[in-house]
């Protein structure tokens, strides 16, 4: 293909990627080193509020932003270096926890609490998603053609449910007066509260994510299974290889590039875990890095929001993903060069 034709085809998508991915990234990167504040002044303000019969008026000193001649709040932007990163990481508190010997205190600090959960969530669900996905693919591959279609359709259902809706459904099923909790309670004859402590919430989150993503792994593996060399499999049978040996020495090595691919996608997705936190309302017990960024961005009743800390937290999340991806990416690169 001539370079000009190639460029004409690729150009639009490169342009859109620069506009919608690269430019926002650069802007977030810059904002993580800046703090934008409204210029405020203290003013005596008289505010009247209604009672039942008469009003009560109070005069108090309020901090209000200064408006310019167009009626818009004036702001000032300062470069503050790594201040926002320090505010997010709270390293002084980590140091205090370590020097006082109460290591457990670290896990009460927002960022570190979120990092602990996010890493555990990512690393625990990864092998489960690959294992369950592969198991379903092997089972489906050995089914008779008559039921294959239906089974594939049903196995794919969890994947097409919108993540927020899926997590809300799980929440409603297991919350104090949910259907499943009520059934379990009458069966076990004891009070069950799945959302009252962190570990049960985390278990539900792992379960939900594996249930939701395993179909994706299944589809990929199932496609991969169709390309396994039948001659190799037959010769393995003649050599006396058991079903497990064939899986171990023929099928899995053949599927290895797909396993790496699914790991890459899953690491990126799981590290940005967010829907489970919102759907399960688990902020009191369990939070994730992505939720932390969101929480910084939500304005409070007076309209304040922490854009700088949100930017810093987003950059830290990105750095985390890159670190996680280094291992599988190195392997793909080696394979690529080897071939």
């Amino acid at each position, binding site marked *: 293909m001539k370079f000009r034709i190639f460029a004409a085809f690729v150009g639009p998508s490169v342009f859109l990627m620069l506009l919608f991915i690269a430019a926002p990234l650069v802007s977030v990167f810059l904002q993580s080193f800046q703090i934008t504040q409204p210029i405020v002044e203290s003013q005596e303000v008289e505010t009247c509020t209604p009672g*039942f019969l008469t009003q009560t008026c109070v005069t108090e000193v309020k901090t*209000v932003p200064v408006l310019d001649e167009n009626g818009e709040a004036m702001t000032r932007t300062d470069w503050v270096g790594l201040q926002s990163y320090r505010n997010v990481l709270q390293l002084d508190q980590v140091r205090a926890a370590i020097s006082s010997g109460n290591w457990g205190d670290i896990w009460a600090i927002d960022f570190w609490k979120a990092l602990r959960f996010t890493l555990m969530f990512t690393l625990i669900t990864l092998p489960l998603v690959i294992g369950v996905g592969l198991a379903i693919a092997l089972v489906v591959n050995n089914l008779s053609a008559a039921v294959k279609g239906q089974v594939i359709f049903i196995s794919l259902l969890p994947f097409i449910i919108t993540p927020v809706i899926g997590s809300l459904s799980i929440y409603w099923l297991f919350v104090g007066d949910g259907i499943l909790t009520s059934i379990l309670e009458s069966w076990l004859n004891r009070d069950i*509260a799945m959302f009252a402590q962190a570990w049960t919430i985390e278990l539900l989150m792992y379960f939900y994510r594996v249930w939701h993503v395993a179909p994706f792994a299944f589809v990929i593996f199932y496609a991969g299974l169709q390309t396994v060399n039948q001659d190799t499999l037959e010769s393995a049978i003649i050599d006396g290889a058991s079903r497990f040996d064939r899986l171990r020495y023929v099928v899995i090595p053949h599927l290895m590039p797909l396993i790496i691919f699914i790991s890459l996608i899953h690491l990126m997705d799981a590290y940005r875990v967010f829907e489970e936190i919102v759907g399960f309302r688990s902020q009191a017990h369990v939070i994730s890095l992505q939720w932390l960024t969101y929480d910084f961005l939500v304005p409070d009743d007076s309209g304040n929001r922490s854009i700088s800390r949100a930017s810093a937290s987003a950059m830290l999340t990105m750095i985390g993903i890159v670190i996680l991806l280094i291992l599988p990416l190195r392997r793909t690169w080696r394979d690529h060069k080897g071939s």
Partner: protein
Amino acid sequence: MLMKKILMASAVSLMGTTAALACSFENAVPVKSLSAGFEAWKSATDAMAECGNFEAELDQEFRTKQPAAFAANPSLYQIGGVSNGTITPLLNEGTIRPLDDLVEKYGQNLSPNQLIRIDGQIMAIAMMVNTQHMMYRKDIFDDLGLAAPATYDDVLAAAAAIKDAGVVDYPLGATLKSGWNIAQDFNNMFLGFGGTFYNDDSTPAVNSEAGVKALETMKALTEYMDPEYLVSDSTYVQQQFQQGKIAMANLWASRGGAMDDDNESQVVGQVYASAAPLAMDGGAPATTLWWDGIVIAKNISDEEADAAFRVAMEGLDTEMVQAANDDAIWLISGYQPNRLAEGAIATAMASPAPISYPSTSQMGLMHTALGNELPAFFTGERDAEATLAAVEDAYTTAAKEAGVLQ
């Protein structure tokens, strides 16, 4: 059968026409409103819709949308539903207009009590007051010979008696969902113990005796609650009441109407309200006073503002209040207080009276810091003082970033 259906259909359409006539003028300018989604707003916006060309957006997340939507030029909504807590960003950014001339033109039916004046200018029209106060199951209290609790010691004693009697799943309910709700519950108790949130120089002051006492009282109450209290918001507590699962809660007055809604509630007529309990002797009831009302956007034409204000006045008239008397504690003339309004009235009339929610930039930051850090105390990760220290740290960081603290 078919005849009956046709008759029904024409009856319904006739009702539609009479409803359209309920508005005194024909509105020609498209008007949109954004407000919270509880019953009172449904009634008020339904009444506004009778004038035609009106579209209401009822959204419990209105507080996050409103500042940006009103800052747009032209504003995305003409009418905004606000409370004393959420009007602050609109005032700060100057995106709502003074209403003095509109009140003069169309506000003959408003009482002076409804006009929210900020520095002398009318910036909002209040329609109802709201507060968190004690709601309890009168039948259960009567059976056990208990009186409506006046202090939090009474609440704990009553909860213990109800637990022993085993008549409900959990004696107490509370709006302790982590985030805004748990912070507001703490605010109530903290003010009840006479605390102040921040000093004159904007430095935090919650790590005090009042703060520790407030947390300890709240913790003692949680012993009698559903163990999943950290996910329990106002709607959840309302449903617990409606399904007969709890016997009392310090709950919003605006939720009172739902207790007598026989489509949802199994306890119609059984729930009574009394003043918010005192946290300490001689203190004010442990709660805050709120109002809800409407504002008009600044970034719209005068013609639109005129139409929007007239539509809003139709929504907030005596006719609407008479049709939806029990939905709220209305400030509009024609309102007849029912038995569920007694609690809110007793709360507001108490001496000393509770303050109205102190809406300032500092308070917004404090509210967020409390909402994020308090759950650690209830899950046992931190003790009371460490939790309050963490709240002060979080507040200080955010206040420096927002420029209110140097």
